[in-house]
């Protein structure tokens, strides 16, 4: 079994109004050095196989077709061996 951690980031060319709004909060907190806040997603799950190549393929498809939308997002993931 593998444990997977996926990070989904908004593409640099896509505006992130949510990140901007959150950063306003930082300004209000007096954290004036905080810049370029951008909000993405963190997703974790397990893959129930011992075949690493097969796991990688399945995770990649999950990321590409469902977890991210390539028009506005990029994804990266890490795969670690895992036992319950």
């Amino acid at each position, binding site marked *: 079994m593998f444990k997977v951690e996926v990070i989904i980031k908004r593409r640099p060319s896509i505006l992130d*109004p949510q990140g901007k709004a959150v950063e306003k909060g930082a300004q209000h907190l007096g954290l004036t050095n905080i810049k370029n806040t951008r909000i993405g997603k963190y997703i974790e799950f397990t893959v129930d196989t011992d075949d690493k190549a097969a796991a990688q393929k399945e995770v990649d498809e999950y990321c590409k077709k469902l977890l991210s*939308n390539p*028009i506005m997002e990029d994804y990266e993931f890490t795969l670690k061996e895992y036992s319950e």
Partner: protein
Amino acid sequence: MKPKFGVVVFPGSNCDHDAYYSLKKVLGYEVDFLWHKSTDLKHCDVIVLPGGFSYGDYLRTGAIARFSPIMNSVISFAENGGYVIGICNGFQILLEAGLLPGIMLRNKSLQFICRDIYLSIENRETIFTKEAVNHKTIKIPVAHGDGNYFADEETIRSLEANNQIVFRYSSAEGEVSDEFNPNGSVNNIAGIINKKGNVLGMMPHPERSCDPVLSKTDGAVIFRSIANSILN
């Protein structure tokens, strides 16, 4: 013969009954609900993907609904030239399904917007707008948090060049400018059609402006256009 509309019901759809009511009780067409777990389109002439928050808008709007069993049938139906209209969340589902290009971002203001707006009809040659000859603009409501239409420059150029932009946010007189853009959509885009002309997605809600009792009926012209396209 009456045209038959099929309104898809996803978990979290909340404009399905509005669409059913307007199409059946106000406009007098045949309507059936289509359950998301089914694959049977019940011989409908038109498929309506209604507004709402399918699957709680989790992940991205429309991202999970797009993989519902019914959507496989809707995609084949659309690819074979069947008429499909996606309203609000329905539009978002069409984008995720790849039946229309682009994506919806959070409204520029970050606020949920719920109010009447005016749409300039940019293309009157479509099966969805051809009855709108006497309308310079139509007044119908928007109700969305993620209606900020985005696509890359090349896609926008292609949409413009092929006359695929059907509606833009405008003034009552039809002036299109930033002042009348409620959500930050590229080029004030409120509704687009596919190249073949049989799939329309729009953020505003025509089904909420059909019944005269609500004092606005401009939305009916869209459903009448579709119905007459089927009958002729």
